């Protein structure tokens, strides 16, 4: 690699191994600046990983991408924490009475150990408990709860019940939270990449890593009154905290008042504070925007997120690989199939699986159908925000046809859970195929009809041309992807740039516009629907016979390692970064949400525009709060 050589020349303390760069934290900003200057202008994601138990450090991972070289680089740095690593070790814990009662009959015959398909030393655990020894719950991590140990036990001990108690005891309760070490810190790179702003705040909020030099390091999703950092391994998943709304308001007011005063002094005019959301018809969910306005002109925007923060990344660490697929449906719920795909590709990448061709064709068909469905929802809601209700009825009528096809394929309409590691759940059947062909016949005409409604409509043009302007330079710097990036003239679509699945077998175009505004995004989405239709009909013609699922073990245990899979969702680059420690559950899972990154550009997009244009611009980003807040 050319860039690797250059980095080695310029930086001393770096380790480079296949696309991954490890660097000391102090040299990180210099390295990032160097990479930025050598073309790696797109900061795809920043995320933190908690290794305090193993190595006594937090790792922060950066993915940088170069549009010109089509190359992705992973940069890793670590922040050591003082006093971690030894926190709960060596402390002898009392064995609860209930467990003692259950294991008191154990004679240590080892039958259970022999019967265990996962090769867990069950006898050691149960007999150990009887003897009063300290048992590490990590030993039973791989238990598949098959029950064969219980069946053969001569003393009829409820082994699974004991295991469950052990697991609960280790993950839940108050005993887990000992974060008595200092806050780890890492230099911020917000001065190089604008998109780092939100990413760093997210890491700070959930992982508790401080970024030195960040201009505005506050909580991103959780309330300011929240105690602790949920993605740390020491925070129990089930520990809930109520929110004091008044304390939150005070915090808010304080922050905004300060800013308001400084702005007022600068401009000399009377500014005021306008609150929009979280209950607002055109925020597409529960987004809250705090605006500082000068009459009708917006001076500054402070988005507040997290009203739908469900902690999906934490949940993932507590479920096995197959169990997590339904949760991906509920991220970007208007494009479930594509979320499924991003996740499943990440797991398959770790397992190095070969997927049957028929399954890949089916995947492409459903993903493209889902892209159309998602754009249709967008086409229903954007004009509605501007006051036109007709498109809503037109598009939802046609979207229903797609849902019927999904229903025939997998039985669900919205949260589909159609993908599996290794393939898909249902084969194409006659009913679905007929509906699909009907749909392909009707849809081109319908898209014409939609365009007749809006493309030359004077009101629509007035409210979208030149509105929400985001230049090419800004778009790249804010990490924006998808239709918004393409509306700024960057021809980047992951389906072409880094082909996944079987997209290389089909002919399709990537629509690009140069308008940089809402109207350009509208044009792009319309054209994308047409291209998707063409992909579907090509796939339907070329679909081969064969299996729809590779042979995969019931319990998926990928090798130790990490993967980053990216797919082109209707909103942009959807990435899943996954770290496996060789067990049945992911060690860490991070979702790079396109809406999250795209929304971060809203303050740039709507600077000095009128309030009414903010509505149009927010809608043009096509936000889905489920994915932003996760």
């Amino acid at each position, binding site marked *: 690699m050319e860039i690797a050589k250059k980095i080695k020349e310029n930086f001393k303390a770096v380790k480079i191994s296949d696309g991954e760069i490890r660097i000391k934290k102090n040299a990180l900003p210099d390295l990032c600046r160097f990479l930025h200057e050598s073309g790696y202008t797109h900061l795809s994601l920043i995320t933190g990983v908690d290794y305090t138990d193993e190595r006594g450090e937090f790792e922060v991972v950066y993915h940088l991408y170069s549009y010109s070289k089509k190359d992705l680089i992973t940069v890793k740095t670590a922040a050591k924490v003082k006093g971690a690593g030894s926190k709960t070790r060596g402390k002898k814990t009392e064995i609860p009475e209930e467990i003692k009662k259950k294991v008191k009959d154990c004679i240590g015959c080892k039958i259970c150990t022999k019967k265990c398909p996962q090769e867990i030393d069950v006898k050691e655990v149960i007999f150990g408990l009887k003897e009063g020894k300290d048992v590490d719950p990590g030993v039973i991590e791989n238990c598949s709860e098959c029950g064969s140990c219980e069946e053969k036990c001569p003393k009829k001990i409820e082994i699974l019940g004991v295991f469950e108690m052990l697991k609960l005891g280790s993950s839940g309760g108050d005993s887990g939270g000992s974060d008595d070490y200092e806050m780890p810190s890492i230099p911020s790179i917000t001065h190089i990449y604008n998109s780092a702003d939100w990413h760093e705040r997210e890491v700070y909020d959930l992982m508790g890593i401080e970024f030195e030099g960040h201009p505005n390091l506050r909580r991103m999703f959780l309330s300011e009154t929240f105690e602790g950092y949920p993605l740390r391994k020491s925070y129990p*998943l089930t520990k*809930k905290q109520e*929110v004091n709304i008044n304390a939150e308001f005070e915090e808010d007011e304080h922050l905004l008042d300060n800013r308001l005063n400084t702005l007022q002094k600068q401009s000399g005019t009377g500014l005021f504070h306008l609150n929009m959301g*979280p209950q607002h018809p055109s925020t597409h*969910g529960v987004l809250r925007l705090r605006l500082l306005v000068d009459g009708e002109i917006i001076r500054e925007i402070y988005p507040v997120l997290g009203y739908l923060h469900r902690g999906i990344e934490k949940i993932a660490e507590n479920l096995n690989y197959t169990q997590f697929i339904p949760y991906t449906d509920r991220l970007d719920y208007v494009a479930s199939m594509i979320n499924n795909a991003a996740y499943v590709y990440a797991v398959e990448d770790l397992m190095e699986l070969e997927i049957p061709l028929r399954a890949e064709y089916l995947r492409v068909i459903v993903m493209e159908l889902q892209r159309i469905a998602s754009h249709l929802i967008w086409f*229903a809601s954007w004009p509605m925000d501007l006051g036109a209700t007709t498109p809503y009825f037109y598009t939802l009528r046609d979207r229903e046809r797609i849902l019927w096809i999904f229903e025939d394929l997998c039985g669900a309409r919205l949260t589909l859970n159609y993908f599996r590691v290794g393939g898909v759940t249902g084969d194409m059947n006659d009913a679905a195929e007929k509906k699909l062909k009907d749909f392909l016949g009707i849809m081109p005409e319908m898209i014409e009809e939609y365009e007749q409604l809006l493309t030359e409509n004077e009101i629509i043009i007035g409210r979208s041309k030149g509105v929400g302007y985001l230049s090419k330079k800004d778009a790249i710097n804010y990490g924006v992807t998808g239709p918004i990036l393409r509306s700024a003239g960057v021809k980047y679509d992951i389906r072409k740039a880094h082909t996944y699945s079987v997209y290389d077998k089909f002919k399709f175009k990537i629509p690009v516009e140069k308008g940089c505004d809402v109207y350009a995004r509208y044009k792009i989405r319309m054209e994308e629907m047409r291209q998707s239709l063409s992909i579907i009909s090509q796939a339907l013609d070329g679909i081969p016979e064969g299996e729809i699922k590779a042979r995969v073990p019931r319990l998926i245990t990928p090798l130790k390692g990490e993967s980053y899979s990216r797919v082109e969702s209707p909103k942009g680059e959807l990435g899943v970064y996954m770290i496996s420690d060789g067990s049945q559950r992911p060690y860490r899972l991070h979702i790079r949400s396109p809406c999250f990154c795209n929304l971060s550009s809203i303050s740039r997009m709507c600077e000095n525009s009128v309030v009414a244009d903010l509505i149009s611009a927010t809608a043009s980003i096509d936000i889905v709060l489920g994915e932003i807040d996760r």
Partner: protein
Amino acid sequence: MNKKLDDSIILTTIDKFLNWGRLSSLWPLTFSTACCAIEMMVAGSAHHDLSRFGMEVFRATPRQADLMIVAGTITYKMAPRVKRLYDQMAEPKYVIAMGACAISGGPFNMSYGVVEGVDKVIPVDVYVPGCPPKPEALLHGIMKLRKKIENERKLTEKIKEWK
């Protein structure tokens, strides 16, 4: 004279009359947090057509609405806002908890950020299970609510109180 009166006079109780008025034009609040909102949107669209029940006017402000369809997950950060919105609605008001999340926290109920059901925050009249429920299921829930309203005796109870 009698013949004319036969055609134009209906005898009923005031309670029944008021109930009929209420149930025939329930105005829902545009309140949606997650996935169920999309199915709620679909319920309002051409195929399922909520206007059959006189409720196609989704109101953006709670002051004009008398039905809150809680469609989606409620987090601890959102819960005080839900309470506030509910308080702002004018009496008589009704709540439908749509989907597993609004009923019990659904698949997310173990998570640190999620309230285990909206009934921990506000009273709920009808629960519609599903993840998400189909639009037909939501319509069924609405019919159940209409049944409930039909049997209410709000005025009679008030009069009893006065006595």
